[in-house]
């Protein structure tokens, strides 16, 4: 926490930990007061007792105003995180009031929210979803009778989106949420159905029993609990002579009529439905039923099997038919023969079997003939080749021909490189099929007309966009600016594989996480003081000095030997450090350091790659020490401020 004195420019600043002051020794300007101290001071009361001086600060607060800024609605500038937290708390409270939740729920939900905030899960999501998810997680873990749809109704958001956010949040925070029990909802729904104070409990008992029966009959797995409750309540109401119709119940239970009817029919298929109300209340059937979807699947399978059997039977019939057909034909033939005895020799046998034989013979003949001709051609070409030396013209052509034919005749070994070539392999692609997918000219004309009509607006927009871009380009050319390049976002290459040296590990980590520019990276690299890292440092320095313009004018980084020196250079607490960026108030730097430190700790928690453990430990050590010192500074700050304003917070009796 050192800097140059703004008045005299000297750097000899004395820091008084007890008073929480930083005073310039040459001109006497007080540079900072209200520094946070770690000493405990006691004051005497008017009654003679002594009380400790100080305030309680919550660990996630950055300034002391957190504790009473809730009622403040401050005009003062507050830290952004504070604002987020207070807004969230307010909204959680509002939502809990709408849902009639106890204060305890509000606190738990707020804790979940803080967890989510720290892990960065609130970014990019609508705050209503986050708040709703936090509240619903609390409801589920405390097994309250609130459904997801109640929360979404209160927030006026889509229930499925809320569910999605809720799932993501619960998996990211690693919270195991117990499964829903439909019995929790019965009493709540029963109250809403106006059964009268006395009968409510009787009816709900019956409904509970029904739900338990449904559970045993495997009707509840995979189904919304509210549907089951609705069905149970309809039946229970009828048991006790209340005429609650399905439409009455669905208004309370928030499911669709068809769902309720389906549950009722499913229950109707179980053997328990055959019991009378009295029997049902007293006895319990031991057998468990299969879940309805399982039963449906078995039914389908049976149907399939039956169809298959039928099909096979059909095939058998067909084959039988053909057999019979053949026999009949044969019989007819014989008869014919006997009838036309004289001219029998002229009658050629037109038996299908012999016809086939003929066809086969002809095909064979054709194949052999073609092969013969091919061989002949080859022989001819070979003969021609022998006359190469005498003839000039045809020889070259025949050579070329021959070589290609010979190549074709060769059996190519499977080319291992075909998978790597870029050329489109056309094997197995029927060209005619492809042509069938391409339109004729006439079709193209019609489609173009239609498409242009349909997409008129889009085409106009495109035209306007192009004109605008042209104009802009012309303007830029006039003004002499360079052509506007499209922003190309290159993906950051994620580091894979372990690092070989500690220095490499630090490099990788730095590449992975674009950490703040308030850290002196060179010192980080020099942590181990290894020879390998030295060369890298030099290269990095050169690169850095050429690319980064913002870097402060440095002396070459001194390779520190002790960890103390490293810490000092990192936090800038060295009193006589001229290379550090001056002119910033120590308080600012403290805050920035604290932020970078907390960012570090958050990042490290999130990091999944296993960097070198040694380096992490070293850095953590440093950061722990940083945190301590920063905390000291903060305490001193608060102490001072509090002394000024005479707050009596933290007094002990």
């Amino acid at each position, binding site marked *: 926490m050192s800097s140059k004195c703004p008045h005299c420019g000297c750097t000899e600043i004395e820091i008084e930990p007890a008073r929480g002051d930083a005073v310039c020794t040459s001109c006497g300007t007080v540079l900072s007061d209200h520094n946070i101290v770690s000493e405990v001071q006691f004051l005497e009361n008017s009654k003679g007792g002594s009380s400790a001086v100080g305030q309680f600060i919550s660990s996630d607060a950055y300034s002391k105003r957190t504790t009473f800024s809730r009622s403040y609605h401050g005009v003062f500038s507050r830290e952004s995180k504070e604002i987020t937290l207070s807004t969230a708390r307010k909204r959680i409270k509002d939502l809990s009031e709408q849902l009639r939740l106890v204060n305890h729920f509000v606190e738990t939900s707020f804790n979940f929210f803080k967890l989510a905030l720290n892990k960065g899960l609130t970014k990019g999501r609508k705050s209503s979803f986050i708040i709703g998810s936090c509240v619903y997680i609390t409801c589920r873990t405390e097994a309250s009778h609130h459904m997801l749809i109640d929360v979404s109704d209160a927030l006026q958001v889509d229930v499925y989106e809320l569910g999605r956010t809720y799932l993501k949040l619960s998996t990211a925070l690693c919270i195991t949420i117990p*499964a829903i029990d439909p019995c929790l909802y019965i009493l709540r729904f029963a109250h809403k159905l106006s059964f009268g104070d006395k009968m409510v409990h009787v009816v709900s008992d019956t409904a509970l029993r029904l739900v338990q029966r449904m559970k045993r009959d495997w009707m509840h797995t995979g189904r919304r609990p509210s549907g089951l409750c609705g069905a149970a309540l309809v039946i229970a109401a009828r048991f006790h002579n209340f005429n609650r119709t399905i439409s009455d119940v669905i208004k309370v239970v928030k499911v669709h009529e068809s769902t309720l009817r389906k549950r009722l029919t499913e229950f109707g298929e179980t053997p328990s439905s055959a019991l009378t109300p009295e029997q049902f209340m007293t006895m319990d059937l031991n057998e468990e039923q299969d879940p309805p979807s399982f039963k449906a699947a078995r039914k389908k399978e049976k149907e399939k099997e039956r169809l298959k059997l039928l099909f096979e039977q059909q095939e058998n019939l067909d084959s039988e038919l053909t057999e019979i057909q053949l026999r009949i034909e044969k019989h007819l033939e014989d008869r014919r023969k006997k009838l036309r005895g004289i001219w029998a020799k002229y009658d050629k046998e037109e038996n299908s079997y012999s016809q086939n034989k003929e066809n086969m013979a002809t095909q064979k003949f054709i194949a052999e003939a073609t092969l013969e001709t091919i061989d002949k051609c080859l022989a001819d070409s070979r003969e021609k080749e022998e006359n190469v030396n005498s003839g000039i013209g045809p020889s070259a052509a025949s050579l070329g021909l021959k070589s290609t034919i010979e190549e074709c005749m060769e059996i190519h070994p499977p080319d291992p490189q075909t998978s790597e070539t870029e050329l489109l392999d056309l094997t197995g692609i029927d060209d005619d099929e492809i042509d069938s997918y391409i339109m004729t000219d006439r079709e193209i004309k019609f489609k173009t007309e239609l498409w242009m009509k349909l997409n008129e607006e889009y085409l106009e927009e495109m035209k306007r966009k192009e004109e605008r871009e042209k104009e802009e380009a012309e303007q830029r050319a006039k003004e002499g600016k360079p052509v506007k390049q499209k922003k190309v976002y290159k993906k950051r290459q994620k580091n894979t594989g372990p690092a070989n040296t500690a220095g490499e590990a630090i490099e990788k980590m730095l590449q992975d996480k674009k950490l703040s520019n308030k850290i002196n990276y060179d010192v980080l690299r020099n942590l181990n003081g290894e020879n390998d890292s030295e060369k890298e440092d030099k290269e990095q320095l050169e690169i850095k000095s050429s690319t980064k313009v913002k870097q402060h004018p440095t002396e070459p980084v001194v390779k520190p030997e002790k960890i103390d020196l490293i810490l000092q250079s990192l936090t800038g607490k060295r009193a006589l450090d001229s290379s550090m960026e001056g002119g910033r108030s120590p308080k600012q730097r403290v805050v920035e350091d604290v932020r970078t430190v907390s960012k570090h700790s958050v990042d490290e928690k999130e990091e999944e790659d296993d960097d070198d453990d040694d380096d992490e430990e070293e850095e953590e050590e440093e950061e722990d020490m940083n945190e301590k010192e920063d905390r000291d500074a903060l305490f001193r700050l608060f102490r001072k401020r509090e002394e000024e304003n005479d707050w009596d917070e933290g007094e002990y009796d």
Partner: protein
Amino acid sequence: MQNFSIGGPHGSASGMFGSVTSPGILGSTNPMTPADPDIIPKLQNIVSTVNLGCKLDLKRIALHARNAEFNPKRFAAVIMRIRDPRTTALIFSSGKMVCTGAKSEEESRLAARKYARIVQKLGFPAKFIEFKIQNMVGSCDVKFAIRLEGLVLTHSQFSSYEPELFPGLIYRMVKPRVVLLIFVSGKVVLTGAKIKQEIYEAFDNIYPILKSFKKQ
């Protein structure tokens, strides 16, 4: 009743097979139940990508091909379909293409080549660079009812079961990295695999667990 626990995503020591042996009440403690050799997951869908290697004029493709639709306001790609193998492709102006709907790896490759051939015939110098299968979906039926509540209790680090949102249990297996949707009727959907072997492996891993949560 506060019975929620906050644990790491990869859980405590009990891995996949270890947890089968722990709860006595909830299922049989026989870890050596072999997978049923008759049940083999059937592949239902394969998604693959390929780079045609040249910039394409989507308007031209859409207007010259019978089986193409192009609605630039809604989506910036041409949607093309072929009948055999029955697949759909999304063709982008950068030349990259996504092919979905095939039932086997070979079919997917053949279909992608057919699309590339169509684009070639329409006058673009299409190539076939870096064909890669991105996702495979398979399904099968174990033929017995499964107790999902028990499964979510034992394998809470891997499973997520929210009957209010989805009737099936979502099981995220770590090795191989496959997501399984397990339903009470005994049907299982496996997705997220890059090769067929991963689907088979995942099913072999889950079968003994499902058997232990069979409805008795």
